[in-house]
């Protein structure tokens, strides 16, 4: 993999990793609010996919959305402020962790209802199709969403209408607390969509260059209007379903497995320049601390904002 690309992917992954680990700490001390779902272990997918997108490409995400928002270019300080419920938050304190939106950077939104983002992404892809642009839409979802009715409805519609959408499934093997074996009769998500006949691929989500290359194979085709595509990334959920999850379902081999599957450690190994990698991490750490300070210094929203934003004018 090209060194500059690898450095950029490392930078994005560190920004996500350190943001989320800091958020986990802030949650323990009640400085961030609400249900918090972290993607530690899955940063490689967000980085490799969003790193290839343009600003006018749209991204949708779900409840585990911080990484996708960061990778798509959302400002980290305003994301932190959103999680801390501040007026300067990216959604002015009205969205929170599960409902991040940054239209300016094409991050069209995360939704807290599993699978609910899939048809929304199709709607944006339909406008791209009707406008005749070469912009595309990417929708991230977990393997838990595949068993939701919206998934089959959306995959069928996307295939019928040949929409410029790339479905990116982060298959971490867990739907909330329940393993994939217990919630799906089909192991691979790429097999679920096989009858629809569009291109699909399953890759190791901890292998960032593999994710990058697979997505790079789909993207130019999607830009030509030859969608949809599905990229299934087998990822590892390092933390619980949400912060506070007791994780009684987690088995004892988790630590050992983590050493194999940490996407940052793996890419750093192949990167070859430990000093540069360490510098990338330090820069990201400084940026996160600045974001926390920015958020803490921001006021909470005035109550009136809630009533003025129920309807658009």
């Amino acid at each position, binding site marked *: 993999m090209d060194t500059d690309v690898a450095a950029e992917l490392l930078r994005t992954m560190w920004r996500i990793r350190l943001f989320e680990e800091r958020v986990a700490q802030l949650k323990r001390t009640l400085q961030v609010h609400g249900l918090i779902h972290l993607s530690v272990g899955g940063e490689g997918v967000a980085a490799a996919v969003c790193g290839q997108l343009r600003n006018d490409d749209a991204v949708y995400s779900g409840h585990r959305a911080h990484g996708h928002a960061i990778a798509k270019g959302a400002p980290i300080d305003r994301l932190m402020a959103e999680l801390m419920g501040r007026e300067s938050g990216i*959604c002015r304190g009205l969205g929170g962790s599960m409902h991040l939106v940054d239209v300016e950077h094409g991050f069209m*939104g995360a939704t807290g209802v599993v699978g*609910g983002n899939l*048809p*929304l992404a*199709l*709607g944006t892809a339909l406008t791209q199709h009707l406008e005749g642009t070469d912009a595309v839409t990417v929708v991230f979802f977990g393997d838990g969403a595949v068993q939701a009715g919206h998934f089959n409805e959306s995959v069928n*519609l996307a295939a019928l209408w040949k929409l410029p959408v790339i479905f990116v499934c982060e298959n971490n093997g867990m739907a909330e607390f329940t393993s994939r074996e217990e919630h799906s009769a089909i192991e691979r998500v790429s097999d679920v969509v096989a009858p629809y006949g569009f291109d699909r691929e399953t890759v190791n989500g901890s292998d960032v260059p593999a994710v990058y290359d697979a997505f790079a194979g789909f993207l130019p085709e999607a830009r030509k209007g030859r969608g949809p595509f599905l990229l299934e990334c087998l990822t590892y959920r390092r933390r619980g379903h949400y912060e506070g999850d007791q994780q009684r379902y987690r088995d004892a081999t988790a630590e050992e497995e983590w050493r194999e599957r940490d996407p940052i450690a793996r890419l750093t190994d192949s990167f070859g320049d430990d000093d540069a990698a360490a510098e990338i991490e330090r820069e990201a750490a400084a940026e996160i601390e600045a974001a926390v300070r920015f958020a803490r210094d921001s006021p909470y929203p005035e109550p009136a904002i809630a009533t003025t934003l129920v309807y*658009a004018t």
Partner: protein
Amino acid sequence: MTEKTFVEAINSTLARAMREDERVIVLGEDVAEGGPYMVTAGLAEEFGRERVRNTPISEGAVCGVAVGAAQSGFKPVVEIMFIDFITLALDQLVNQAAKAHFMSGGQLSVPLVLRTQGGAGQRNGAQHSQSLEAWLAHVPGLKVVMPSNAADAAGLLASAIADPNPVVFVENKSLYFRRETVPDPPEPVPIGQARTLRPGSDVTIVALSRLVGDALEAADRLASGSGIEAEVIDPRTLVPLDLETLARSLRRTGRAVIAHEAVTAGGFGAELAAQLQAAAFDYLEAPIQRVGAPYTPIPVSPSLEDAYRPGAWEIEAAVRIALEWGEYDAEPWEHGAITAPRTSN
């Protein structure tokens, strides 16, 4: 002025909106074929099947596609063929469309129109006849429109398409095929403005959708038979609600009857009654009466469905109760003076 049915009024308004703005698209089951009531007939021929898109029977995804297209700058008009099927689209409508503007801190807006139709009377049974508008009026972020005639349907649909918010446009299939006089070109009707269809000083009848016609019929009978002058008001939109027009009338008459086809219990009439009593409590001469359907699923058998559907007779009975309230020592029906209303369940 010209003669049109409700269906034709909707159809020509859709066509006009699509001609004026190419971001207006129509999608739903069978819409390119015109749909079961031919509301979208001819649109695919004029605008092509890219803009008039037939969809699979996937109400959830189709509604979501419309929401996604709306927040990406288009103006979709999505059809849910029967309001009974809106159950399948509620996640996209309630959790996504209604909240996108708010949760994004104002970044997104969802200029979506969801057209659907409800109402009983066709022997279609309990899954193709309901009136579920109260569910939708309960969700902040949605607007809910219920026209009672072809002219309002045209004017309100044009306003709904122009609105930057998700608007649920609830038609009643019983109104579809009467010939009515409508202005040509149609006059715009702002969302959130009630209309007084008949002036009166004795009682205020607030009626929704199909019951507006029944209210006018009841008012005529009351006037000619008993000299009772009922004022009939059609709110036309449930959300936002023109409470002031309703309250002003009630402060003058002191008595109100609220009529809709939906089940009385938990229906939008309950909200109307609550808001009206708060706005006009000191002027009330009688409890606000509600007319609606009984608390059962909708039966199919003609004899049962006809008995189930509220109409002019029930409104007339409720008006008499409102007017005779307090004239007797005990409840009026204890004297056998009138029949107890079926609506007092």
